[in-house]
């Protein structure tokens, strides 16, 4: 173990916040689907990567600005989410079986990606990666900063919608007790379609963030599952600000561990933290 300099430590914390923001964007849609729709949606990861590849394609071949691609991807993904919800409603899929169905969808999407873009690594070369910002002695990469901005904006807006609007209140009511909510005039089926569409849009947004800062490969879909589930659970499924808070906690603890010890030790700290939190957290769930 070595004690790093203040700059190194600061840089580690900063990169932890950035990776945490990426965790948050990926986890947000998963968390909402889990907490409010009772679905454990593995396909969320596949959709995010599909979104990332689409961003890559539109930006590299189509020459669009990566941020602008979201305007095209988001509506398409909303439709995708609605279609998936139709499948879930039509067959009344239980939460446990949703895991299986969406795993099957993940495999299908993975092979689709592999067929179109091959199994090789792809990297989006955008103008954003060249911009170099500095705050004091700290180096701030622009793609990661954008991810952080997107994470904060999305989390706060979802939080505000759930908390302060009638639609949000209805969604929370329907999640708690669908028949009672329906008796109070909540159209929970329609809400579920909207919510599922929004979750898929969030996957599209996560895809943009992935494309901005990560190297893409079809097999990478599975690499994120463990840590993102940890983030969602730690934040509490269905809670809009949960993934952001938990993502940053896990991201920073990983980054600091990497700086202080060897990079390979990083998962121990974050997951031990998670285990302790799950065991010792007072109150419900």
């Amino acid at each position, binding site marked *: 173990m070595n004690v790093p300099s203040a700059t190194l430590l600061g840089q580690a914390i900063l990169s932890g916040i950035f990776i945490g923001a990426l965790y948050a964007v990926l986890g947000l849609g998963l968390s909402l689907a889990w907490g409010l729709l009772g679905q*454990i949606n593995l396909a969320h990861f596949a959709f995010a990567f599909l979104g990332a590849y689409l961003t890559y394609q539109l930006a590299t071949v189509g020459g669009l600005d990566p941020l602008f691609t979201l305007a095209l991807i988001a509506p398409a993904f909303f439709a995708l989410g609605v279609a998936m919800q139709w*499948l879930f409603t039509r*067959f*009344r*899929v*239980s939460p*446990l*079986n949703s*895991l*299986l*169905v969406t*795993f*099957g*969808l*993940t*495999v*299908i999407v*993975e*092979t*689709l990606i*592999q*067929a179109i873009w091959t199994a090789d690594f792809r990297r989006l070369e955008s103008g954003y990666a060249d911009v170099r910002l500095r705050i004091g002695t700290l180096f701030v990469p622009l793609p990661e900063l954008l991810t952080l901005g997107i994470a904060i904006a999305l989390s706060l807006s979802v939080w505000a919608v759930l908390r302060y609007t009638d639609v949000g209140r209805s969604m929370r009511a329907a999640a708690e007790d669908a028949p009672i909510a329906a008796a109070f005039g909540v159209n929970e089926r329609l809400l579920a379609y909207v919510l599922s569409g929004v979750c898929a849009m969030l996957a599209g947004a996560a895809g943009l963030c992935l494309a901005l800062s990560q190297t893409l490969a079809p097999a990478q879909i*599975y690499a994120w*599952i*463990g840590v993102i*589930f*940890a983030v969602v*659970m730690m934040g509490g*499924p269905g809670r809009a600000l949960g993934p952001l808070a938990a993502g940053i906690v896990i991201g920073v603890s990983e980054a600091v561990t990497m700086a202080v010890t*060897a990079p*390979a*030790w*990083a*998962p*121990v700290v974050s*997951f*031990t933290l*998670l*285990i302790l939190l*799950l*065991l010792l*957290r007072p109150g*419900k*769930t």
Partner: protein
Amino acid sequence: MIRTVVALVVVAAALAMVPLAGLPPFYETFLYLVFHWIVLATSWNILSGYSGYLSFGHGAFFGAGVYATATLAAHYEVPFLWTLPVAAAVAAVLSLVIGLVVFRVRRVRGEIFALLTLAVTFVLATIILNTPIDGGPGVYLSAVPLPQIGPNASSTFYLLALALAFATVLIAYLVCGARLGRGLFAIHDDEDVAEVMGVPTYRFKLAAFALSCALAGIAGGIHALFVSYVTVGETFSITVPLSVVLMSILGGTRHWAGPAVGAAVITALMYAFTASDYAIAGKAIVGLVLVLVILFMPRGILGRRRDRTAPAAPHAEPATSRRENEVPSARAEPAVRADAPAILEIFDLAKAFAGVQALSNVTFSVRDGEVLGLLGPNGSGKSTLINVVSGHYRPDAGRILYRGIDVAGAPGHRIARAGIARTYQIPRPFSQMTVRDNVATAAMFGGATLSRSAAEREATRWLEFARLGDKAGALPDELNLHQRKFLELARALAFRPRLVLLDEVLSGLNPSEIDSAVELVRDIRAQGATIVLVEHVMRAVMALCDRIVVLDHGEVIAEGAPAEAMRSPAVVTAYLGAPAHA
């Protein structure tokens, strides 16, 4: 049961002959993989499928076995076969350490358990990666000598995996039919109820976890030598936990053979396509098959059929004649002498929830053979009292003497075994067991602890007694409220209790249903059980109770003969408010 075991032995023996046929090694290697996944999926199902504690950490225990064998065989030159028991032990001890902590926390159920076990996998993988156990480059086992079991290497692995798969499926089958399996199924449906019905939930979960993980550990040990080069990345990948869940659910988690069927199907599909020229399309087809199977067979391949073949009630006799034979003194009102000994004595009992004093200084006793009414306005602490006596909550202070022994704070199943049964105000049947199995489970774990067949006979008897004889093969969902309440009573009775705590059995029933329920309570008493009756229906209280105890705000405010106690000023105030002129 014997027939199934014999069938399993015959199938395994036939498969053991395969190496003699001299097939190309390709077939044996493929079948090795099938058996390998059968072991992993079936072992996972023993805890997670039966009890509903979904583990996403099966890869950790598999990996513990892989590295136990790899370390011993490669670094210490221990003969390969000797490393397998160690692999099993390492995995089992690891699971016990986790279980000892995790299963104590009542909150850790469902997805929390799934996530905890997943997190354990990552922690374990990181530790192995960073310590000399692996250290990063992986462990080579190519120099480890392979025992000569079959004619060549591939048939040796084939036979090892076959033997383990046979043992695992046999164990899963035996557990399924045994007390352990029945207890695990009860935990799956409602763990709190299972505990107060006498199922030692904590020990059962630990036993199932250790058994499940030991088998996964052996599979890991064999697989280490099979792949001959082990790395942390491959061993602890998400593939193992995800695959075993998929295979088990595909096959059906409530059936002992379900995971084996699912494992065979998925392994065959994967292999068929990855080996062909259309590997990518094949993978997509596997995904599609999975989606379609789950959509159209949500209970798994073996799940649906099993529910259909629920056996009809054996020897169902006319209810009336049987009842009269058995309870001749049903109408008799045995008078309880005032000097009858106390069966339950409660002293200074206190319980608070986050500052709300639900019970304080509660002191009273229940005499052997009496019907004691427990009354009080809503929120006065009646249900809390029952929950404390039955062991669901631990009291903050006070003593509960049951037949002279202090049971305050004892685990629910101990209290249950000592002879205290309870019912729930809102019936809580085991939703995926038939009505008969619900009652038989109580008989198996209650005061009498009967064998399964005796328990089923006993269950049939009590179902007749509770006028549910014709519903024995139904699932609880198919019963109406009245029948579900009677199912609660039948379950409490099959227990052979000395003391029954009845929590508002009459609420929500119509007047004629109340009459038949009152009759049933009388019958229960005639069986010799002491009854504590929590009730709001005054007509029933007056008809049934020898004495009553009235609670208000967690304190005893009156005690005595029903009519007198209800007239006491404190009771009148509690129910109607203080008199205007006071």
